[in-house]
């Protein structure tokens, strides 16, 4: 098989085609529930399904003969700080899990310490100090002043 010249777009094209199939199947399922000829909830999904498959195929073909991509390669090269970005995103994932268990305040404090340490590369002591100031400020503004109720967690 011919190797695509623009791999990221090729992957995007394949995902688009897959999405097209999924959306078409859902459109077909919704159509079977239609009670009258003007129950048209399936129309847009059907159009979108076909659109994804057609446009995805066109994009796939264009990635095989993509000339300009060579010039843009510099932009898609991994950065030396990519690990820091991945760690930050992982911290957000961890933060989401902690929110349910530990509650808003404790989870925010822990996630902030980690983010200050990862993004700012500050020492632990400074990261903790920054996190305390940030969590405290958010608590005062959003919980005390604006009265937004956040998850309390299982410990409180």
């Amino acid at each position, binding site marked *: 098989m011919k190797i695509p010249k623009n791999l990221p777009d090729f992957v995007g094209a394949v995902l688009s085609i897959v999405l097209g199939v999924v959306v078409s199947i859902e459109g077909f399922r919704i159509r079977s529930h239609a009670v009258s000829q003007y129950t048209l909830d399936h129309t*847009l999904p059907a159009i979108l399904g076909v659109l994804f498959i057609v446009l995805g195929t066109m994009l796939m073909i264009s990635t095989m003969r993509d000339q300009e991509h060579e010039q843009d390669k510099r932009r898609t090269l991994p950065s030396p*700080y990519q690990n820091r970005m991945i760690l*930050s995103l992982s911290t957000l994932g961890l933060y989401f899990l902690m929110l349910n268990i530990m509650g808003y305040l404790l989870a925010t404090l822990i996630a902030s310490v980690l983010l200050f340490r990862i993004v700012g590369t500050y020492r632990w002591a400074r990261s903790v100090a920054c996190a305390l100031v940030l969590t405290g400020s958010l608590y005062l503004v959003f919980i005390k002043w*604006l009265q937004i109720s956040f998850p309390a967690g299982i410990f409180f």
Partner: protein
Amino acid sequence: MLMAGFSEAITPGNLLMAALGALVGTFVGVLPGLGPTSAIAILLPVTAVLEPTQGIIMLAGIYYGAMYGGSTTAILLNIPGEISSVPTCLDGYPLAKKGKGGPALGISAIASFGAGILGVIGLVFFAPVLADQALKFGPPEYFALMIFALTLMVSLSGTSLLKALLMGGLGYTLALIGLGPSSGMPRFDYGSSTLAGGLDMISIIIGLFAIAEVLKGIEEKRLTTVIGKTGRVYPSKADLKKSFAPMLRGGIIGFFLGLLPGCSAAISSFLAYDMEKKASKEPEQFGKGAIEGVAAPEAANNATSSAGFIPLFSLGIPSSPPLAILLAGLMIYGLTPGPVLFEQNGPFVWTVIASMFIGNAMLLFLNLPMVWLWVKLTKVPYGIMAPTILMLCTIGAYSVRNSLFDVLVAFFFGGLGYLFQRYQWPIVPLILCFILGPLLEESFIQTMAMSSGDLTILLERPISFAILVGAAIFLTISMGLNRRTQKRVKEEKQRGIDVA
């Protein structure tokens, strides 16, 4: 009506929100790496605790404040926060290198103020007329209008129209999740009651714009930058005299282009710069520090931004990414953007318009005597800013529906948005179609029911036919202007200007 708007706009609460919006907007405009779209996205849920008028006044203030502030980094750091600020860099930065950064910032603020006011005056006269005509719209006209809005994708497509169309399709698909409008049956829920409730617009916007932007900033290891002396901010009489005509020309070009839905501020600022260069008696000075090269694009940029409120308020069509988020804001407040907005919420619209006059005056004050403060603020370390923004994003996503699922959606779309930006898949068509998707589907279903399934009704009714013809004309103009702007951006990138 406008006077009534003024009397409402000068109440302490509204004045405070206009000032706060202008202040926050200038702040985010000054900071490289956080544009008006991200700022509005983050603050949209926070403003939900305010009254609709105050909330939209603040968000509008952020929008035009960021347009003002964006010129500061363009002139002092050669970093245009938005593509529309690229032409400002061309002469602004050489002026800053000569120690004339202050007068360049001064002219930029005056040009932005003059053009902003020109745009708002246009808004006062044009928007009600357009909205009045649009009141005659029925479902086929609305459906035609949504098709018109689709033509925006061409101007927002970035480097690839194919990818823009796919992203638009993804936006529509995400909007389909939830209950079907005609049957009330859940779609794309896969047995999950959470998905049957649909995806929240704000979480997606926060993820795609704000979180993705921060992740990009972390990867690029954004740092604070050392800036040289800016000199005195107030421009000399000679500078003002030289800049007056370019400001006027730039403002007029920007305003009329801003009336066309789909014509971005980038198009008008490049066009104004190029036209000024052609009209100048000393074109060789352009690119080396001509003050006219700052005045014209800044005026055009701000006039287009203000004029963008005309299609937004009167037709419900956003012409730029921040206006798309503002459209979402209007919807969150339960306001119907489009023709009925003036009829149903007249006092609200006129108060917001009146506050724009006040906000622009406030911005002139914020940008002239206080420019030293903004220069200092560019020194806030990214290591402090990024975690703070991420925590605010979490609160923003959660607070709309008090749902942790929305936080997860924001984080997921943050990661996805980062990938989209990295591989140059345009995000704005996705958001535009996500916002317009339900309106398009509803008007389509109503049109089909009205015409017994015959779509030729769109060609039989004069207004819907005129809208479709208009869409075709705008599409052609848009494609031509977009191609021209892309060519110019490419040229400037080759000369070393990198858009943040």
